[in-house]
């Protein structure tokens, strides 16, 4: 569900197809880790898209920051979740 949303929001932000796809993969990686319910919020602005995913295991996140860093421009652990940002 979040992949198609990233597609629409990424398109609005003017990201390239590859950037949108990499972000969608990063989101899938995070939400696939544990299939519990969790929240996700998107912020799109011209030239950037940010998504915050709540309630993510911080130890797991720290282990996977290297992989996430290949997929998105910025990764930040924040309030029990993770903030992923892609800049054009």
């Amino acid at each position: 569900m979040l992949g198609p949303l990233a597609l629409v929001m990424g398109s609005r932000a003017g990201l390239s197809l590859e950037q949108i796809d990499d972000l969608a993969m990063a989101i899938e990686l995070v939400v696939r880790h544990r299939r519990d319910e969790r929240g996700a919020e998107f912020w799109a602005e011209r030239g950037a898209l940010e998504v915050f995913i709540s309630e993510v295991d911080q130890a797991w996140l720290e282990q996977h920051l290297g992989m996430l860093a290949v997929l998105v421009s910025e990764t930040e652990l924040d309030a029990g979740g993770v903030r992923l940002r892609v800049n054009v």
Partner: protein
Amino acid sequence: MSEPAELLARRVARGDDAAAEELVEAMRPLVSSMAKRFQGRVPRSDLEQAGVVGLLRAAATFDAEHGTPFGGYAAPFVMGEMLACVRQQAAPVRVPRSVADNERAVVASVDLLTSAHGRSPTVAEIAEQAKLDEEAVLDALRASMAARPVSLDEIEPDRFGETDETLEAVERRLELGTRLDRLDRRSRAVLVLRFGMELSQREIAERLGISQMHVSRLLRAAMAEIADQGEDDAPSG
């Protein structure tokens, strides 16, 4: 002597049916050789028919003024139609024909734009190239994201070129333990190229001789496999 393919394509774009027949005949060796890559998975006649659709799509938008030979211009269209044909026949759920048609146009446009600009295109650029509105492009991309990847069997093994060192680097980076060992060699290789060597999808596509969207599906499948293994390995309770 027959007319050059570039001139035939120009006539096809003007609606000349006789030229379309001549063009298909002239380009038959290209279509046949590309169809061989998928031999055994889909009837050859279906692949060649898909290839002809790709050729005619290419002819409709070909511009000889750019100096690109028609064969080089048409190859991504032909490949896109053949991949779509293989995928549609293998897919458990068939997408509506209109979406499948748009998906092929989108795949061909992505390949063309990527090759022309040396970077991945935006959705707006794809829409302009494919002559579709952005909603139709997004629908086609959603369908493409949900599709199963075509196997890597058609790619020559030596194009992967992974080494033990890069494999170990990826395992360390991904904190995978020995999980990479459980993937087949080619899925592993795609992960190594993306996360070990940090090549972009476009660079991987160039290296393996496949489309960027194909690389995306392969990466997605390999990552899902790893994530699923992680779940299996996680202590229960």
